[in-house]
């Protein structure tokens, strides 16, 4: 069902009705006070906390960076010990990449997207809150480790065998692996939220050719997260199994291979740099048109660049491994793709330049940071093209030249645009602008400081200074470069400090600026900082720059003349629209304020932290609490049967409140999550075959799981899947008893499948610590069985929903989503047990 959208706003309601509407909206969207403030799930609060936390982590990492620079200022320095130095640079890189660069964009996206898309909320506000709390806890855990002299100390990419050596790396490596895995979960949660939000929750009329470019970029970035983070999670699992239980995945003596970690890390790591870079460019794609006072030139070209970069960035990872002795042809493929990615990157820069040339540029502080950042980024891009050439990289690899390259791209491509964004969007917080004067001074300090600090590193690197050395002798000709770098670093830090001062200085006396202070054409500035409802009414959009082109838009929105001007149900509501043309199809009730997200995040954090210290009982207790919290969250907050089937959303349109299957946002969320999950699984299977390629006999003469048990497991899972299909169809035909029976049978079959899945490796007494083959077999089997167990919980959940009348033929979202899960489950089971049982025979 979908409604035709009336183009003109509805007639204005009389003032007393409007006041009553506003009263109701305010009540529904209110943020609690006192300690309960922290239970808020509103996108503006979550976005703000997320951003503030990421920024604070960044400042902390910055201090560590300064420590590193002080130590290197002069030769033979003894400012800090070698070990503390190792912890400092490892934590510096780790925090900057995982706790600042990625989360800050999630923060900005959660904060801005609803208003930019002209809507009230993202579809899963509680998921955002859950992500934030996970991130905050994981971040504090990782950062705090250095105060106990227990920080990771093997570099931000944790190469084995150094990082698997317990003597050397201590508990730091576990903190890295578990703390960051936890944060990766949060990132994937954010990706789900953003993809569904951008595709399904735009304002009516905002067709994909009218979508703000920021949303285009974020859509691509969220998709990249889905394919980039899971390989790292798979790698983390292998790594942690090696550290905790001595399974030899990366131990060459027992058939393992450290290179597998490098592959998994960089399949994540290179896309990661674009996951960081694209959102920053997305901010520029909003800022540049505003200050050129004209639409962007080449909208489609930006879409080309965003999508193109998103894809190509997955073909580059081996350029971090040029020196590892891979076949030259392989190196050449990656070198070629690394050069190709310069094309879309260049396109974006030319689009910005063209837009500025075509308009009349106002050189405000955000533009200053934006343009300065781009200039820096271009230098980094040029050195990137250089190191993407294999012979050059063999010279530059692991020297300060790389350090210079990566800081030019990261600071120019991400930090400067983020600061531009802070100056640009700050008025959204409390209606005040940051200081122009301080901003300009800060910019020049940062710009000159940065170049002073990092340009000389190119020369230090070319003169052979390796990265990650804690000191160096005086007579090799590196001392002056290092001294200059350290001075530059402090100038740069002074600039950052000035930005911080500008943000936190009291602004009580400063007068408010106009609501749309820069005269932007897109919708971010239409909300008022005093109201929590986002937009007063959800507008109908028919332009890329609606504020410029649609007459009286802002007045009509505030007068409540568009959709959802009221909340009669007393619940938080937003619209769901179609993917291509944004026709409204559903009125979605989203979750409100709740502690359950905090409980779930903290207990899940407990699982990871307890694992670090091998507190097994605490781990189990926390896992049980997490499961309980999530089930409670789903049971009380999702697939609720509405009081009536269709609902007045204003403008004379009525829409359904409940949707299931591909029409529902929940189905999409499940689908997207499972794509991410499937990617992690594919990475494990990649590992299995990787070991096959590097050995003549990859079993190393050890017994496999046999054929019988894997085939039993495979068959049982396939039948269980069939039972789920039957259950869904019976439910659709309104046969609740039979549905329940089918669900029960499916659960029993799955239980059998899980047992049979483990029986194979068990029966043949495969010892995972002896050799890598038994270890990888166990990992694949356990992965599959754990997914089977989750599948059983879902089956029982549906059973309970059906028994309590919460799931019926008409209201069948739960079973649709669970069957979707089972589609993925059956693919996993067939692949796993097929490979484990049969591949040893056919190889």
């Amino acid at each position, binding site marked *: 069902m979908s409604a035709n959208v009336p183009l003109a706003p509805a007639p204005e309601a009389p003032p007393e009705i409007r006041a009553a509407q506003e009263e109701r909206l305010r009540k529904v969207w209110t943020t609690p006070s006192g300690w309960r403030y922290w239970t808020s799930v509103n996108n503006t609060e979550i976005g703000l906390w997320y951003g503030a936390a990421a920024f604070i982590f960044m400042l902390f990492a910055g201090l560590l960076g300064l420590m590193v620079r002080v130590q290197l200022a002069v030769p033979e320095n003894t400012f800090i010990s070698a070990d503390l130095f190792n912890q400092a640079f490892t934590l510096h890189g780790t925090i900057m990449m995982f706790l600042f660069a990625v989360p800050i964009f999630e923060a900005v996206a959660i904060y801005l997207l609803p208003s930019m898309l002209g809507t009230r909320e993202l579809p899963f506000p509680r998921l955002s809150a859950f992500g934030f709390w996970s991130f905050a806890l994981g971040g504090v855990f990782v950062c705090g480790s250095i105060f106990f002299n227990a920080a990771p100390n093997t570099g931000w990419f944790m190469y084995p065998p150094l990082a698997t050596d317990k003597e050397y790396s201590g508990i730091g490596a576990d903190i890295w692996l578990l703390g960051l895995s936890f944060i990766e979960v949060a990132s994937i949660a954010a990706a789900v939220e953003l993809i569904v939000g951008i*595709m399904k929750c735009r304002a009516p*009329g905002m*067709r*994909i*050719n*009218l979508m703000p470019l920021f949303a285009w970029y974020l859509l691509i970035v969220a998709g990249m997260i889905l394919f980039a983070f899971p390989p790292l999670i798979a790698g983390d699992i292998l790594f942690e199994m090696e550290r905790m239980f001595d399974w030899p995945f990366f131990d060459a003596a027992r058939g393992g291979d450290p290179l597998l970690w490098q592959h998994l890390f960089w399949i994540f790591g290179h896309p990661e740099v674009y996951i960081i870079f694209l959102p920053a460019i997305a901010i520029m794609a909003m800022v540049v048109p505003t200050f050129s006072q004209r*639409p962007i030139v*080449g*909208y*489609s*070209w930006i*879409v*080309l660049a965003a*999508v*193109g970069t*998103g*894809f*190509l960035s*997955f*073909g580059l990872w081996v350029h971090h491994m040029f020196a590892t002795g*891979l*076949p*030259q*042809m*392989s190196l*050449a*493929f990656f*070198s*070629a*793709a690394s*050069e*190709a990615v310069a*094309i*879309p990157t260049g396109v974006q820069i030319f689009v910005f330049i063209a837009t500025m040339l075509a308009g009349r540029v106002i050189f405000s502080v955000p533009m200053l940071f934006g343009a300065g950042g781009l200039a820096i980024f271009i230098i980094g891009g040029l050195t990137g093209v250089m190191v993407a050439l294999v012979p050059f990289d063999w010279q530059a690899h692991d020297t300060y030249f790389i350090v210079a390259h990566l800081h030019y791209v990261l600071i120019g491509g991400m930090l400067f645009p983020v600061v531009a964004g802070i100056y640009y969007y700050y008025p959204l917080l409390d209606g005040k602008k940051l200081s122009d004067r301080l901003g300009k001074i800060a910019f020049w300090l940062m710009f000159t400081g940065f170049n002073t600090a990092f340009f000389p590193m190119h020369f230090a690197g070319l003169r052979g200074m390796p990265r990650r050395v804690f000191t160096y002798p005086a007579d090799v000709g590196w001392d002056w470069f290092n001294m200059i770098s350290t001075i530059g670093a402090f100038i740069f830090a002074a600039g950052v400090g000035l930005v911080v001062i500008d943000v936190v200085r009291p602004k009580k006396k400063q007068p408010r600026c106009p609501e749309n202070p820069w005269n932007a054409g897109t919708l971010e500035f239409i909300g008022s900082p005093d109201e929590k409802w986002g937009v007063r009414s959800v507008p109908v*959009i*028919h*332009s*890329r720059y609606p504020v410029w082109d649609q007459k009286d838009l802002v007045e009509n929105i505030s007068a409540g003349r568009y959709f959802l001007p009221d909340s009669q149900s007393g619940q938080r509501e937003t619209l769901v629209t179609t*993917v*291509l*043309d944004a026709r409204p199809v559903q009125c979605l009730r989203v979750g409100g304020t709740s502690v359950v997200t905090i409980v779930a995040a903290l207990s899940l954090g407990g699982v990871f932290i307890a694992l670090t210290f091998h507190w097994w009982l605490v781990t189990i207790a926390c896992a049980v609490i997490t499961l309980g919290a999530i089930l409670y969250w789903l049971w009380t907050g999702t697939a609720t049967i509405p009081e009536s089937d269709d609902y007045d959303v204003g403008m004379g349109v009525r829409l359904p409140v409940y949707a299931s299957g591909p029409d529902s946002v929940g189905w999409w969320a499940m689908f997207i999550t499972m794509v991410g999950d499937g990617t992690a699984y594919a990475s494990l299977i990649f590992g299995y075959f990787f070991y096959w*390629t*590097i050995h*003549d006999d990859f079993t190393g003469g050890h017994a496999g799981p046999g054929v019988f048990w894997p085939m039993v497991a495979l068959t049982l899972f396939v039948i269980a899947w069939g039972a789920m299909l039957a259950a869904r169809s019976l439910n659709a035909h309104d046969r609740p008893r039979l549905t329940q029976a089918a669900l029960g049978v499916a659960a029993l079959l799955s239980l059998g499948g899980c047992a049979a899945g483990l029986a194979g490796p068990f029966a043949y007494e495969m010892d995972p610590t002896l050799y890598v083959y038994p270890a990888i077999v166990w990992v694949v089997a356990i992965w599959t069985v754990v997914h089977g167990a989750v599948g059983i919980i879902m089956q029982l959940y549906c059973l309970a929903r059906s028994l309590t009348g919460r799931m019926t033929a008409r209201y069948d979202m739960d079973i649709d989503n669970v069957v979707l899960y089972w589609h993925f489950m059956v693919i996993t089971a067939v692949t796993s047990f097929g490979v484990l049982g049969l591949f040893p025979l056919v190889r």
Partner: protein
Amino acid sequence: MRWIKEIETFWTLFTAPTVWALHFLVCYVAVAVYCAKQGALAMSFETMRWLLGGITVAALAVIVLSAWLAWRQWGFGTEVPPHDAPTQDDRRKFQGFATLLLSGLSFVSVLYVTVPLFFIGACQS
């Protein structure tokens, strides 16, 4: 090519880049496995280069087809961008144009990745 119906979906945008990704993956995996297992295989490096060359031609053909469909969706360029009207027609033209651009990029990128096939004649020299 009337026989290919126009499909109304978001996903066609990604056709050409996906072909690029598959082509890249096939080339990478083929070489990696070949070079790891060369002892066990009765195939020369030369043959593998030709095979990958054939796959490259196929990939390019699919990309050209996707480009042609996109060109058609764009109305063969009868109207120029920006395609920013709030109509279904302009939305389609926008999709067509963006897909066409992506096909171009993917075509060039496949060629980039093919260059090593011409110049490198052994696993390790």
